[in-house]
């Protein structure tokens, strides 16, 4: 659905504010701002490796995320330029996790290359059809990712792991900013078409899966490692419920909407080069 002039103006202002804060307060350099000299092999654990490797794998689909995102957002300057900035920031996350895995010695270059090859053998496709639905998806996905990275940050602090503390601090801050932008988009959509936006939000919540499902090698096994995913109850309490409040709705209204529009629109199936059963995280 084409956006009207008011929506375009709102998106432009939202993007300019996002970009301004990002440039002034959030930019960081993966090589200069991470204390790589503080890497301590005695702090290495396979759990840290699996977490970082899994997160890296998800971030490595940035080319697919941005390509699909651009196709959806191209007609709206503010949204398309956010997509460009988002892609840059997420690409830095993947790069940083990659550096961590190899510099720490948790993975050899050959092991990392093998993992990357498996990632690039598959393609991520849009889980939902429209720009509005994908904005709802973005808000949920960034929220879950932020919560997962915050847990990792706290763990790194407790363990005195200065390198991971810095990595997860920068990355979780970026994810929070992304979530904030998507929430603004949903708020704008609610102003324009409350009923339609609620229906889309309900549909996305009902069918939500993290992007790693079906794409990351041995994903189910990885989820068994503490910190790779997020427990459903935590996601409800710290992710979904606050999101509903932030966009001006409630759990009760969402459930009513779910009942009214349950599974009317088919979810787009993710393409992959091998068939993998899709499961819900947590």
């Amino acid at each position, binding site marked *: 659905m084409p956006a009207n002039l008011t929506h375009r103006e709102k998106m432009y202002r939202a993007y300019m504010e996002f970009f301004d804060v990002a440039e002034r307060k959030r930019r960081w350099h993966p090589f200069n701002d991470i204390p790589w000299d503080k890497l301590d092999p005695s702090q290495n654990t396979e759990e840290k490796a699996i977490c970082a490797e899994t997160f890296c794998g998800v971030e490595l689909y940035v080319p697919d995320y941005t390509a699909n995102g651009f196709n959806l957002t191209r007609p709206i300057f503010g949204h398309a330029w956010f997509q460009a900035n988002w892609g840059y920031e997420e690409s830095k996350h993947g790069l940083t996790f990659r550096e961590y895995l190899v510099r720490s010695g948790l993975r050899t270059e050959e092991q990392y290359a093998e993992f990357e090859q498996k990632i690039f053998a598959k393609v991520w496709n849009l889980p939902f059809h429209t720009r509005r639905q994908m904005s709802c998806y973005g808000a949920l996905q960034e929220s879950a990712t932020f919560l997962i990275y915050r847990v990792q940050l706290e763990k790194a602090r407790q363990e005195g792991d200065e390198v991971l503390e810095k990595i997860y601090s920068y990355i979780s801050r970026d994810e929070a900013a992304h979530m904030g932008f998507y929430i603004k988009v949903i708020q704008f959509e609610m102003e324009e078409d409350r009923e339609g936006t609620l229906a889309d939000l309900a549909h996305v*919540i*009902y069918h*939500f899966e993290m992007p790693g499902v079906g794409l990351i090698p041995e994903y189910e096994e990885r989820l068994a490692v503490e910190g790779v995913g997020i427990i*459903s*109850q*935590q*996601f*409800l*309490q710290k992710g*979904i*419920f606050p999101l509903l409040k932030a966009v001006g709705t409630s*759990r*009760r209204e*969402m*459930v*009513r909407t*779910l*009942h009214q529009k349950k599974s009317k629109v088919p979810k787009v199936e993710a393409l992959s080069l091998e068939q993998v059963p899709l499961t*819900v995280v*947590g």
Partner: protein
Amino acid sequence: MTEPEILNLLKEAFAFAAPEEAEAAENLTLEGTLDQFGVSSIVAFEMAGYIEDKLDIQFADDELAQISTIKGFVNLIRQYTDTKVVV
């Protein structure tokens, strides 16, 4: 409400929220976690809405988010129905 009555209501709510899991809904018991019975967090969300409408109660979001077992869900419902004042 008695525990068996609440459990029956939960079975009803599960079948409503996830009609494709009707068989699993019948097998709900007090022992076990929501995950073990295939009750995802979103299905639990819907079940809560069904139960709230049926019993004219409203769960606090924070309390609802803490539920991970069938017994826990039953206890929450009892908490809200036992304290409800009927005029």
